[in-house]
């Protein structure tokens, strides 16, 4: 099943520990929540895109992969342009709609902000191998192995459940229930899926237990999950990028602490 790790080209990010990617995403995005302005957004987006190209993403892939935010950004900014806090010259007015200097500025800021938050997050989170992530979460961040490995094993069942669902649908047609009563059909399918999921899940749990999972012994790990100097360097670079974006807004005088307004 390519559901969990769809085709993502290899990049230099693959050499990092997967948990580092989470740190990078947080480092790049959290500081941007401090201010809502055009300058910081533009700088952050520019830096993120440059970094994406440098680590090896192709522009075409970036476009294809980040389409949800490419769609969300203009939608969010249009509503800002129409309903955002008015100030300065009024260009257009109708009912609650008031397009002004201020609202247009806000629209541009929101547009850039959505992209600056969305693009790096999507790229950093796509193509992480779930096994490597689990190794990192359990060994580097010391999350409980029971929880991490249980979740990882459970992921494998998703593919089986999708196949079950398809068969359940075909079976309804075969049983003469395919023509009408979509709601009833859905309910019988959902119930059957639940029964099958519980059965598969408990069987998997038994299989795991028979192989010593959840026992009293301290678990070892066949493959060490390492945090190296490369990971530290990546986080340092991300900090510099985030600080640059926020400072540039302060220097340009556009820094606008969220909620304080102008």
């Amino acid at each position, binding site marked *: 099943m390519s559901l969990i790790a769809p085709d993502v080209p290899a990049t230099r990010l693959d050499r990092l520990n997967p948990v580092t990617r989470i740190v990078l995403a947080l480092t790049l995005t959290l500081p941007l929540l401090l201010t809502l302005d055009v300058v910081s957004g533009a700088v952050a987006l520019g830096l993120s895109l440059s970094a994406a190209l440098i680590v090896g993403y192709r522009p075409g892939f970036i476009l294809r992969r980040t389409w949800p935010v490419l769609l969300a950004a203009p939608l969010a900014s249009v509503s800002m342009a129409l309903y955002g806090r008015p100030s300065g010259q009024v260009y257009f007015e109708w009912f609650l709609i008031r397009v002004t200097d201020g609202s247009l500025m806000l629209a541009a800021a929101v547009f850039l902000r959505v992209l600056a938050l969305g693009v790096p997050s999507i790229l950093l989170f796509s193509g992480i191998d779930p*096994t490597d992530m689990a190794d990192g979460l359990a060994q580097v961040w010391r999350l409980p192995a029971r929880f991490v*490995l249980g979740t990882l*094993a459970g992921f494998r069942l998703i593919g089986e459940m999708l196949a079950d669902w398809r068969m359940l649908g*075909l079976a309804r047609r075969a049983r*003469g229930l395919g*023509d009408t009563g979509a709601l009833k059909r859905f309910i019988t399918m959902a119930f059957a899926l639940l029964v099958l999921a519980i059965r598969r899940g408990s069987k998997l749990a038994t*299989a*795991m237990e028979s192989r010593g999972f959840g026992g009293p012994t*301290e678990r070892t790990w066949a493959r060490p999950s390492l945090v190296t100097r490369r990971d530290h360097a990546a986080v340092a670079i991300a900090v510099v990028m985030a600080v640059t974006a926020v400072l540039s807004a302060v220097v340009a005088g556009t820094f606008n602490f969220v909620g304080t307004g102008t």
Partner: protein
Amino acid sequence: MTAGITLEGWGWRHAGRRAWAVRDATLTIEPGERVLLLGSSGAGKSTLIHALAGVLGGADEGEEAGRLTLDGQHPAAQRGRTALVMQDPDSQIVLARVGDDVAFGLENLGVPRDEIGPRVRASLAAVGLDVALDRNTDHLSGGQKQRLVLAGALAMRPDVLLLDEPTANLDSEGTQEVRDAVARVVAERGSTLVVVEHRVETWLPVVDRVVVLAAGGGVVVDGAPDRVFRDHGDTLAELGAWVPGRPTGVTKRTMRPTPAPVLTTSDLTVAYDKRKPVRTGLNVSLPEATSTVVTGPNGAGKTTLALTLAGLLPPVAGSVDAAATLATRKSRHPIDWSSKELLTRIGTVFQEPEHQFVTTTVFDEVAIGLQALKETPAAITARVNELLELLHLARLAKANPFTLSGGEKRRLSVGTVLATRPRVLVLDEPTFGQDRRTWLDMVALVQLQLADGNAVVSVTHDADYIEVLGEHHIVVGR
């Protein structure tokens, strides 16, 4: 080192159940013995083998009676000394990479890192699984998957190897792969082996003792395989076991010459997802009033073909054409027919009976197709009762289909389809993992259909079934 097992009046009752799954079992298995465990369905074979694996759970999961020990201690206290392989490898593979999955048990047992690599490689070699360590476990064949599960078990170097119908879902090639791997390993290491399996023949070369559990509790027969099958053949056949050398007693029909086809395909391409064709250029036909078997290796597209013939999956290219006698006024292509029109034309029995259950009682399950056809309540009741009698399910009419045993589910799934008297019956692996009694019932039902002039097409790996019902043969290559 190998371990001996002792049961003294042992029993287990699952929480919330009135009846004991196993009771009064007294048995000693010496270290290095290789035991085939038999018994009718419901005799508690799986429960016993799970208990030996130490995975039955604690007091909140059920009640334990008597004593069960592995070298003097309860198995649950000695994880890793026993290893369990069950049927259906898909729900036993834990991780996405071959090497990781074999290492899983070793990591849990706290084996030091530098020992894990060599033990993983040795186990994969022992089961003859020669694939890359980072190979995706989803991309293995059925037989390879089950050998992977076996490798994961062996890596822990268990003293006792427990197998619960390990080959029930595998084609004959996969079955042999797994059996041979087990035979090799047990011979090399001298491990104790306990295997549950209806298909006795498969394991006969490996085991040196046969133990038969009684449904009411206790052990009924115990001894060397030759003697047990010679002296107790009738009892065992009665319990549903496939006793070696005992014919099924069913014979192939004599065929009338070349019947006309009821369904034909022309240049058919089949797939679940039209971007990923499973097979192309299929030109096959199903003769009327004839039993057709579809064979071929795991993953060849047999089920996909069957579901396409049945009018459930749309052809990706080419077409499925019904004879004029079967076609509706509007279309000759089954995929164009409404769900209700299919009911009396093509009936499909799915590989997993649970996929096709839609009601909460056995009675309703059989009745629902007839209700969709707007038959009178009296006619429906008569037809349902007739079928339940035929399927030996009459006493279960009010039970929930999901709570039936494997054999009962299989019989019910056929009954639900036969209710509306379809002219073509499509069966996907009707005898997979079934004991001898259900097998005989299935064959009898198919023969009734044929006698009524209906066509039957079965996807199957079962050599005995093909022997009796392979009147027309479609081979789907890889």
